[in-house]
């Protein structure tokens, strides 16, 4: 069965690109428009991995990671955050909240797939 990956991003174009790339790679994709939406969907849907932006309205990436780690179903799944190079402190914050890894924006589809393969096996 195909593994399910959630992409949480307030930018529709990034969501579209991530979702397109993952589907090409044979994964199923669940999209969420912000942290709140993502957390709500996570409580009802079982996903194998989460890719989240850090800056989002309503609930930001850090809040989403903390929230997700609090869910039993998401305790051990890989969570990858999308950051920009200027956000090193945010990266540390994310790691502390329980993120598995990160992808630095801008990234190419191949880089995204490499990271997914790395953490999801």
């Amino acid at each position, binding site marked *: 069965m195909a593994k399910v990956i959630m992409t949480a991003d307030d930018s529709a174009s990034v969501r579209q690109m991530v979702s397109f790339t993952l589907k090409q790679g044979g994964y199923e994709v669940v999209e969420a428009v912000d942290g709140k939406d993502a957390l709500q969907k996570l409580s009802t849907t079982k996903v194998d991995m989460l890719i989240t932006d850090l*800056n989002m309205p309503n609930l930001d990436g850090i809040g989403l990671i903390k929230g997700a780690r609090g869910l039993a179903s998401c305790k051990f799944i890989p969570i990858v955050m999308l950051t920009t190079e200027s956000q090193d402190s945010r990266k540390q914050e994310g*790691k502390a909240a329980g993120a598995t890894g990160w992808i630095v*924006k801008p990234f190419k589809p191949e880089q995204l797939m490499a990271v997914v393969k790395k953490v999801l096996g």
Partner: protein
Amino acid sequence: MIDVHRQAFKEEAYELLSELESSLLELEERPEDEELIGRVFRAMHTIKGSGAMFGFDDIAAFTHEVETIFDMVRNGKLKVTKKLVNLTLQARDLIKSMLDGSDLGNGGDLDASFQIISGLRELAGEAPPEAPAEASDEPVAVPVASEATYRIRFIPGHHLFTCGSNPLTLLAELRDLGPCNVVAHTGGFPSLEEIDPEGCYVFWDIILTTSRGEDSIKDVFIFVEDDCEVKIEKIADYGPDADNADYKKLGEILLERGEISREEMDSVLGEQKRFGELAVSKGIVEQQSVMSALVEQQHVKEVRQAVQQAESASSIRVPAERLDVLVNLVGELVTVQARLTQTAASRGDAELVAIAEEVERLTGELRDSALNIRMLPIGSTFSKFKRLVRDLSSELGKEIEMTTDGAETELDKTVIEKLNDPMVHLIRNSLDHGIELPEVRQAAGKPRQGTVHLAAVHSGDSVLITITDDGAGLDKEAIRAKAVEKGLITATAELTDKELFNLIFAPGFSTAKKISSVSGRGVGMDVVKKAIEALRGSIDITSVRGEGATITVRIPLTLAIIESLLVKIGNDSFMIPLAMVDECVELTREDVARSHGRNLAHVRETLVPYIPLRERFRVAGNPPDIEQIVITQVNGTRVGFVVDNVIGEHQTVIKSLGRAYKNVEGISGATILGDGSVALILDVPQLVQSVEAEAA
């Protein structure tokens, strides 16, 4: 596909920009509103991040400056002023014009962006930016790493699992880098009551040999390096200067890893037992540490061995003539050996027979390995044909893919060389006449791209080479019409499909309506057939109209030595290649009388035509009362050859007849028998052909 993403980004960016405008105007009214500041920041952030991803680098770079300012505002380091709002609005307008111009390759107004950035930096109390400099794109030299072995100790943090990391995927990633041995240290587990089920207690020693360098190993651990202990040491490399002496002793490895001290090592070494056992029994190190060190030792040894083997297993290039000389000598030897065996048997000397048998065995082995040296995989010619197909298909305006199978099948070097021209001709034919134009194919409900499949497979002492295309197939009616026109058959002749298809091998036969540069120049398939027969091979076609055609070429493995059937007519000996022989039946005087001079024999209810060789070769004397018919099969038809006696199988070293007799019909060569006499090798297909021609 990228264009779709770019379009999506542009739409999103326009939306964000109009939102940005209203947010900025509101912000002017309520400069303290954190919600509004956050919204502005996020809009900038998204435009920057997504912009860079979809190739809007100029927009991303510019927006980055504005974003930086708003990050400061967000963190309370900067106040919202009218000037800031003004500048940001200008920035917003500039981004919009950059977006508008992006399709036209218009990079936006550099001066304007410089002005805005300077203004923003001034507000932030920073130095204005350097005037935009030429980007340096000097390539960074990437050093080519040679193969090396690394010792990696990976001690995961206790909370590795709750960060979503899986050490197993990391180990799998290491394995992708090269040969890898992993030893897990499980000694850290507490007792069951104290265990934290979500914690990680295991650590690993990994010995990895890779040519990708240390950085690629570090990359594997990039997400976990902060929380885990990862130690990477290079312990051996295999470059040209690497010394290949014995690898380190167990004690030295443990010492290097810091698991024992030198004093401990020396004290243990003082005793005459295996170091590992001793060290463990003395409680200096744990069993698993010793295991891990042993694995390292083994790993390096294996890689070194592999490197050495790769060096020594290299091949030697020998001129082909030397091989030919060798094979000739072996041929002579086989002949002499046959004589020796025969002489020994006739003398009745047991000791001599024993020696002769020994020589026979050795000669057999020598012959096989000498012939083996000349064997080459057919794959090299396959790749040549790939190129041919590629070039021809574009010339013909067709879309054709070539697939191959059995490229590793081995054939005598001479055979492969002589096979080249006929194969080129056959493939050209398939491409030119077989596979249709893409439009025609589409109309017929086939994929636009045609396929030519080339396969080679061993079958007994021959190799079968098949060329299969999924083109139009042979047009039976066209072949028939053409054959009648050329006078090859009568208009009323009844032919099987096979016979009909075989007509295309007749001299001067060509069904292509127009002559192209590729094929159809009159020197058609008959030349191919002759070339194949010169190799003692045969050729066959099957085809289904509309679905394609398959051409099968059967070629003997080698030209030098063949298995054949030794027969006698009077005092003369002849050889019939065994591959063509189906069976032997008797022919009595009564049988001959019953057939009323028509040379047909009844074999299990079917009629088999035969050729009396005694007559054909004008051998003097009378045939015995009971003659033998050796029934052969050539291109699917059975033809018998009448001889006096069948002696038996014979390993035949083929000798050419020399220039004077080169054109003798029906004889393809000669060989020397054990008693020194000469036997002629029958050219079965040619004999059948010439008899048929005479009869017609």
